[in-house]
């Protein structure tokens, strides 16, 4: 019995110590080796250019900094949004993590970030202003890792088959999409599912609001965009619906399924992020891209979006974390990630030899497009509510026949709902 009791005590002690060690934050000795926890949505073990570039960049950083090891965890954006606020509240936030631009203020409000160290202000060659990446106290919490904006993708073969030219206005998009739909294709690919954080419709909305010069939030963070300008977006979707040019399963379509549809040649057109240019080119040579169609303002300028890097709240390794971020956004790593089709964010990167090679033509074109056809936006701390609201409004637009203005108002109400 005594043995059993000691056994029980031992098991309990081991379990408790294991549990406590699992819950305790990683610590490091000053000057000693450091292991940085890093969350990224890209899986470096995958066989695609972006993953390979990430893997090489991490390996090169470790080789250049033998005292710093990177412990990379692959976490999808959806999981990150759930887990980061929880881990930060428990003092377990990763040292470094990637975050989608529109979500930076929301995650900052959730206390997920540590302010960047003073050394961050020494980097001054960002291609876009970084003051949009500030936390509630106004301190900068993230730096841009990659830029992208929206573009119009179209299937050249389908357009040729229906005798249409590439549309340059949203009115023309509706006409061409209607013809494509009549020929048995999905005329215009978008999706109202919120299973992927409403990625496709919210990205499109974000760009469109810049096109029509419509602010999304008031200064106190309330969504306030239900104006005539924004209704143009709702009206465009309503016209596509009435023209039967949206996919039959638009309600449950996601960014991924629309991209699959484009790649497989069943979707004639779509507005998606520029990060798809390289992958579409390799998947289906019929897919071409061009600037966004003109809105009523005549503007084709979308929003500069992309991914950022920041330091997790409570990180004990801010110095090493910044060193890693500086490397990953720096010229050497930037040139490497550009080989995967991602657009680097610092001017110095474009002085690397790679950008003078023929292989860099596509990424140079994308970078030039992002520069000329997009502007950064300041976000409020309720992007997820807005994105979900847009999806649900889109579902109602399809299933309940909402008008364009009802769509916009419904999305705005959802964004402001607690």
């Amino acid at each position: 019995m005594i043995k059993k009791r000691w056994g029980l005590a031992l098991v309990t002690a081991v379990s408790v110590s294991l549990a406590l060690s699992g819950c305790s934050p990683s610590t490091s000795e000053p000057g000693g080796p450091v292991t940085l926890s890093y969350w990224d949505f890209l899986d470096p073990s995958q066989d695609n250019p972006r993953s390979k570039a990430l893997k090489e960049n991490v390996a090169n950083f470790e080789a250049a900094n033998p005292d710093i090891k990177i412990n990379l965890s692959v976490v999808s954006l959806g999981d990150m949004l759930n887990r980061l606020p929880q881990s930060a509240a428990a003092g377990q936030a990763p040292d470094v993590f990637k975050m989608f631009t529109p979500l930076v203020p929301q995650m900052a409000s959730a206390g997920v970030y540590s302010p960047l160290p003073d050394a961050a202000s020494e980097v001054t060659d960002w291609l876009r202003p970084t003051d949009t990446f500030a936390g509630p106290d106004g301190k900068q919490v993230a730096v841009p890792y990659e830029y992208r904006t929206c573009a119009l993708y179209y299937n050249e073969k389908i357009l040729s088959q229906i005798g249409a030219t590439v549309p340059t206005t949203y009115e023309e998009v509706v006409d061409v999409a209607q013809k494509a739909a009549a020929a048995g294709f999905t005329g215009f690919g978008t999706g109202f599912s919120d299973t992927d954080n409403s990625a496709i419709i919210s990205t499109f909305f974000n760009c469109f609001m810049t096109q029509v010069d419509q602010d999304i939030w008031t200064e106190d963070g309330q969504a306030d965009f239900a104006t005539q300008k924004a209704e143009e977006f709702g009206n465009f979707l309503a016209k596509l619906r009435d023209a039967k040019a949206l996919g039959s399963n638009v309600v449950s379509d996601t960014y991924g399924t629309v991209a699959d549809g484009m790649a497989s040649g069943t979707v004639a057109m779509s507005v998606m992020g520029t990060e798809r240019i390289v992958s579409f080119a390799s998947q289906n040579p019929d897919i071409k891209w061009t600037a966004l169609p003109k809105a009523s303002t005549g503007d084709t300028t979308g929003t500069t979006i992309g991914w950022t890097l920041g330091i997790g709240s409570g990180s004990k390794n801010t110095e090493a974390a910044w060193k890693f971020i500086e490397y990953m956004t720096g010229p050497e790593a930037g040139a490497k990630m550009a080989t995967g089709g991602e657009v680097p964010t610092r001017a110095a990167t474009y002085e690397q030899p790679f950008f003078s090679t023929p292989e860099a033509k596509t990424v140079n074109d994308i970078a030039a497009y992002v520069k000329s056809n997009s502007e950064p936006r300041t976000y409020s701390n309720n992007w997820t509510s807005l994105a979900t609201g847009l999806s649900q409004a889109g579902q109602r637009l399809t299933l309940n026949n909402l008008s364009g203005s009802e769509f916009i108002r419904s999305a705005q109400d959802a964004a402001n709902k607690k």
Partner: protein
Amino acid sequence: MSTNNPTRTSYETATPSTGIQAFRRARKDRMVWVYVVPVTAVFLFVFVGPLIYTAWTALHETSYYQIGKFSGLNSFAELFSDSELPARIWTTLVFSLGALVIALPAGLLSAIVLNNLHRFKRSVRSLFLLPWLFSQATAGTIWLWFLNPNYGPASAITQALGFGPTDVFSSPNSALVAVTLMTAWWSYPQAMLLFLGALQTVPVELYESLKVDGGGIRHAFLNVTLPHLRNTIVSVVIVLLMLYVQMVTIILVTTRGGPIGSTETLSMRVYNQMFDRFDLSGASATAILLFAVNIVLTLVAIRFRRKESL
């Protein structure tokens, strides 16, 4: 005289052994705590603690995962003034009872088949258990792929038959039916295992007697099998209802509560409030309501259980 006193004799002679017995009993009684304390600790830690914490957060303002000042019953007032709440409760009931109505007979039928099977029993049992071997996320993903209107096998089949592509997740009613069926498919082996265990305790003699009296399969099922399974059925109903009322993963993977909230059960609402709107206080209030719904459903089920078995 004293030696003739049986009581005293018994007392005197029994004193040492009774003392030992009393000591052993006391030691045994003390040993009970070795078992009771860990169970109580775990119960307090994994049930009572979170329940109190949930109620506590429901009574306070929250910002993400930070608990702010006391707000009284504001979260509950907001919950019950939400015009969408009745629809969510209705969806929860339709989903839970719908899945139960499918999984219960499916589980019972499978158990009866397995119980009467003499050849390939292991293979058939493995086949019947297959859905339950998948995690809920895997099951949801498999069905999502299978029913995908663009490249899913279901679409290929329906199109080959001259119907259009499967598009179950694009309409509120078909989406609810789909997630209900998927959940029933995933969970029926749980019922099957419980029924199979109970079926193996039914005395074979009863069936033989009934056979001698000229009873057929229907009589055997109604007069022997069902009465013996009554308490098991209630247990299965309780287990499955709790599972369905608390189901999140399959719905999350497939519809996330859409389209237009048609598959948002109370559990899914808790998830969405918590992780989409980061409304910890509101999610806690909904979770308390969910707990109450669970208790009511369980109590209703228990009422059908035989008193003598309680």
